[in-house]
């Protein structure tokens, strides 16, 4: 029997990692993307390789996923990561009161941590707020989201996957209650074509609802936007986080010669039409200054926002085959051959891909184990070979 053909819609981090996982398991894979690889949600994220520290108090399941994936990514894409760790820094009494909870959270989620004496933290990061009251070091890292995704896509391509950027899915084709492929518009030529598939995976993040609607089903994804403000100097070597519960402007991530301050959160209706509120930009600079006062001496170099997929948890039922990773097998909605994966974080893209690929293989009766934990990824540049 010929290898089953799977179409993956969306080449952000999740779709890219899914194409890689499926290609490695020997399936025939076509990855479709409306624009360039990682041009939307993934492209405009924090650039943060999470240690899990951000979630270790209130969302320990996510924190454990993050630290486990962090350690795997260090092995499979070592040359695409900046590994200078992160500091969780207390600058007021409320932060200081959070410290023990944070350390307990790290312990509970097996996140390695080190209590760094303030004087040492200030030597390590000379631009840190001199009023720093405490600092805890964790294995955060930094990636560059476009190249992060390209590394997965390059490896998928080497393993036979077909990658088609600049094509938009306009329809899902169906026979009875089964999805049989997609109808696409190729923007390079202006022509439409139909591609058949044994199964279609929707990995379009905050657009999940729109693709699902083409199949006549619903997924509980709520697009929420977040802003990132980049200043013109690299002010920190390590990732600097606010030692407190997650909040607006709680992180400064270094990226090349700049620093990226993030982020805020507001609900939007259309992920294609995001207008950035001016006060969010000002708030980022203000909160950034609390961690690193020299933000005030910088000018703003770039401002970006993208929609994130937030999963509505209220209607958790049997459709929600794996809540942690927000993977939906639409056979529970009466539609065969169609699976949606959404939510999550770029740091956990590989794990999300593993989960959805397990479901795909089970549905297609393919016996193949996941090998992405051990498989070192190609250089991102090899996408262009």
């Amino acid at each position, binding site marked *: 029997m010929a290898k089953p053909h799977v179409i993956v819609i969306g080449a952000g981090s999740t779709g890219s990692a899914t194409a890689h996982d499926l290609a490695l398991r020997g399936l025939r894979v076509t990855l479709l993307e409306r*624009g*360039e*690889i*990682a*041009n939307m949600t*993934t*492209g*405009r994220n924090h*650039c943060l390789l999470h240690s899990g520290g951000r979630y270790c108090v209130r969302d320990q399941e996510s924190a454990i996923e993050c630290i486990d994936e962090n*350690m795997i990514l260090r*092995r499979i894409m*070592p*040359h*695409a990561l*900046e*590994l*200078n760790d992160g500091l969780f820094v207390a600058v007021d009494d409320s932060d200081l009161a959070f410290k023990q909870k944070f350390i307990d959270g790290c312990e509970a989620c097996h996140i*390695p941590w*080190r209590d760094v004496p303030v004087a*040492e933290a200030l*030597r*390590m990061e*000379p*631009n840190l707020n001199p009023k720093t009251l405490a600092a805890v*070091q*964790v*294995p955060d890292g*930094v990636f*560059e*989201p*476009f190249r992060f995704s390209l590394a997965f896509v390059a490896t998928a391509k080497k393993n036979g996957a077909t990658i088609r950027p*600049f094509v*938009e899915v306009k329809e899902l084709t169906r026979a009875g209650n089964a999805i049989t492929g997609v109808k696409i518009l190729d923007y*390079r*030529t*202006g022509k439409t074509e139909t591609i058949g598939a044994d199964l279609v995976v929707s990995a379009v993040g905050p657009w999940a609802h729109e693709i699902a609607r083409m199949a006549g089903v619903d997924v509980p994804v709520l697009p929420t936007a977040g802003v990132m403000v*980049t200043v013109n*100097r*690299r002010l920190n*070597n390590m990732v600097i986080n606010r030692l407190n519960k997650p909040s607006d402007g709680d992180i400064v991530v*270094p*990226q*090349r*010669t*700049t620093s*990226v301050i993030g982020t805020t959160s507001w609900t939007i209706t259309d992920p*294609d039409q995001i207008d950035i509120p*001016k006060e969010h930009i000002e708030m980022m600079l203000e909160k950034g200054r609390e961690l690193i006062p020299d933000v005030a001496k910088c000018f*703003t*170099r*770039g*401002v*970006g926002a993208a929609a994130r997929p937030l999963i509505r948890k209220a209607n958790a039922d049997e459709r929600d085959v794996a809540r942690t990773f927000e993977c939906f097998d639409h056979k529970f909605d009466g539609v065969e051959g169609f699976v949606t994966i959404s939510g999550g974080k770029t740091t956990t893209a590989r794990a999300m891909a593993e989960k959805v690929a397990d479901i795909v293989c089970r549905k297609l009766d393919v016996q193949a184990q996941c090998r992405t934990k051990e498989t070192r990824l190609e*250089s*991102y*540049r*090899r*996408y*262009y*070979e």
Partner: protein
Amino acid sequence: MLDVNVKVFRQREGQAGHFQDFKVSVPDDANVIDVIDAVWRQDSSFMFRHACHHASCGTCAVRVNGYEKLPCIYSVKDAMAGRAEMTIEPLRNFPIVGDMVVDVSGFFQKQIASDMLITRPAEKTLGGEAYERSEVFSTEGKLEDRAYNRFENCVECGICISACPTMAATDKFFGPAGLAAINRAYQETSDPAEREHLLNLADDENGVWRCHSGWECTEACPQNVDPAGAIMSLRRRLIGRRLKGIFKLN
């Protein structure tokens, strides 16, 4: 809000290119990428590349009013200074895929030749001080004493290729980014065999000797990589190697 008249280059596969006029409205402090995005919001068939919006991915490079720019860090106010309209075109010296999108595969193949790593040692703060070395977590999550790293300055945007007059004459030229990458890789290694290999790559009729020393690449580079300086540095190393060879012969 700023109202901007923008003239945008359009091209589909197998068709002739032309300009199309758009009127868009963007916030006062917007960058040119927001103008491009606003055009796409009006016409979703408009093709362009972008990702980070902070000059790290290098995908969005285009020509604005005839000059190579990263539109994500180029303000609309600057781009419109003294002008009634803005012109946006794709980079030169690359095959056009459609509209603003160019085929960068030839460029990346040249980048592969030097195998320059995306990361480099982070030996200095931007203030010029040495970082205090400390313990850092390893791959296994254990503390170890090792150097910090950071991402390379070059974002592989292709702006230097578009600005380079030699590239316009021949696409066989390694190009400013490729040669700068060879120079970076040379600086990063102390292995004599690897250094020899890198110098041999540069010492080619399509390598450093093809460069016309016009410095347009260094002028246009949004990341201060100084490709022309890197080319001159490689030339000095190659001349030094030749002189050593001559003295050995005698």
